[in-house]
């Protein structure tokens, strides 16, 4: 497990200031994640799980501590370099999908490629392939408001994975979906995890959390429990 960790957090502290009061969102968090893991982060509201996710996604910086992604210290990178890392190595999936309402499904999927500066010809090819993989080909020219919730989240997942990132960060991916479509989306994410993509899910839902092979429970900015199911193929600390 120590060899070639994908993510290595050491002594991470993050404090927010709300007026006069201090909020300790993360205290002394140490975390090691190997490539291809399937992790659920759970805990009550305000326990720091969203902050952790933002930090992992390089949207936020820790006050203290280091974050190494694929062996490279990314805490000290300039904002534009962090943007490049986000563009190439990290995919985000949000509870409310965050699709651009003015753009079609295809254009939404194309966005990260466009931002990465990929030539138009190759972009079209990649988008077509992603649409096919997620069964959205006949929905390509629809705008988000013409899609069902499940379809929207599929578009969002397609957008997050079109760059083939190493880590997929999902913040309550099923929060806005009914149980059936939520189940469908989770299966899709698990299928992606099976191809080797590291999947980190933040959730309130204990059922969803229980499906992950490794469960982190957070409280008051600290990881209070880190349980790896025996069935996990990746880590086996119990043996």
């Amino acid at each position, binding site marked *: 497990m120590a060899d070639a960790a994908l993510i290595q957090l050491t002594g991470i502290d993050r404090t927010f200031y709300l007026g006069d009061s201090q909020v300790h969102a993360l205290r002394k968090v140490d975390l090691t994640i190997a490539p291809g893991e399937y992790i659920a982060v759970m805990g009550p509201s305000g326990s720091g799980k969203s902050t952790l996710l*933002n930090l992992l*996604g390089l*949207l*936020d910086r820790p006050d203290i501590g280091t974050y190494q992604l694929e062996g490279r210290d990314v805490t000290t990178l300039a*904002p*534009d370099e962090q*943007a*490049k*890392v*986000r*563009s*190439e190595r*990290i995919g*985000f999936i*949000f509870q*409310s999908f*965050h699709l*651009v309402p003015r753009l079609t499904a295809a254009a939404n999927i194309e*966005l*990260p490629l466009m*931002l*990465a500066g990929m030539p138009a010809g190759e972009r079209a090819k990649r988008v077509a392939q992603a649409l096919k993989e997620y069964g959205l080909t006949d929905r390509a020219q629809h705008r988000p408001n013409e899609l069902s919730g499940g379809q929207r989240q599929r578009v969002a997942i397609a*957008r997050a994975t079109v*760059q083939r990132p190493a880590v997929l960060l999902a913040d309550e991916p099923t929060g806005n979906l009914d149980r059936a479509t939520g189940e469908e989306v989770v299966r899709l994410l698990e299928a992606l995890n099976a191809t080797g993509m590291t999947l980190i899910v933040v959730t309130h839902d204990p059922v969803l959390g229980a499906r992950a092979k490794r469960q982190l429970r957070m409280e008051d900015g600290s990881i209070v429990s880190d349980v790896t199911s025996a069935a996990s193929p990746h880590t086996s600390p119990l043996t």
Partner: protein
Amino acid sequence: MRTGLLMLAMSIGVAAVVILTALGDGARRYVVGEFSSIGSNLVIVLPGRSETRGFNPANLVTSTPRDLTVDDATALLRVPGVERISPIIVGTTEINAAGKLRESMMVGTNHEFLRVRQLKLALGRFLSQDDVGHGSAEVVLGALIRREIFGTENPLGKTVRVGDRRLRVVGVLTEGGRGMGMTTDELLIVPVATAQAMLNTNTLFRILIEARSREQIADIKTRVLKLITQRHEGEEDVTVITQDAVLETFDKILNVLTLGVAGIAAISLAVAGILVMNVMLVSVTQRTAEIGLLKALGATSAAIRQLFMVEAVLLSLTGGLLGTALGYLCAAILRHIYPTFPAYPPLWAVWAGLGTALVSGLIFGVMPARRAAQLDPIQALSKR
């Protein structure tokens, strides 16, 4: 909706520039046209000396210590390069014929007046040539006077009473002759000696000199001034102006006017630019979530800044083009309503309008774009 309002503001700004400069430039062209219609290659001698050289509106009213006489005019014919001379004396009088009485402007001049002023006759002939000195009892009528007094009747050979004289109608001018803002339709033209006798004066109002060619105008101007000074016992008491000088002065004045008007229009453009900024700022606030998303998807600050700049520029450019079209349309309508007024927007104004639109779009797009780029992605994302 938002973009529509923005483009409307921008297009109104640009249209204002185009229309206002079209008006200013149209006024300039109109005046220049009026002056050209006096006649070509003209040198004008007027009594009185202005302090500064060049044309001055005060010249029109100053009185002279020494009269400018018909003899002076005749003497000017000897100046080399002079093609024609036409002395002018002006007064108001009454014309009375067929039981109708009408007040009218009377111009006393010679037979060359027709050529110098480039007028045309509708009927009969102009004043006879050998009148200088004795003054035959002839009159040429303006088109409007003829219509009002004689109607459709042929006035040639009829006798009319002008002031205290009885004059024979020898010709009628064509309609629509203009010059110096005065229509010739309401003029009576009589021999200069007749007019002098009627008005009991020796002084000429003007002497019009037509040069043989445009190049000789400057020479003629100095020679004429010298000759008149000589004849007036060494005193330089006349002003010699050329049509070019008059035109130049008016051109200058009206150019300043056009620029001033363009300045006003530029202010309206600046206002439009500020509007662009505000709308863009609102749009940044409205699209906070989207900006946060773009950042999460790996957009650099530069990319987001660029995005907003491009949008601002595109909006102003489209608005500018729309405004130009609108301006041209309005100018065309204006020309349609007032056919004599050449309200063509000058090309420089169109480019300046478009340029200002673009530049203000750029400048006022910078602030919102910077704000968008600096947004904190977490906060941007959590806002929904």
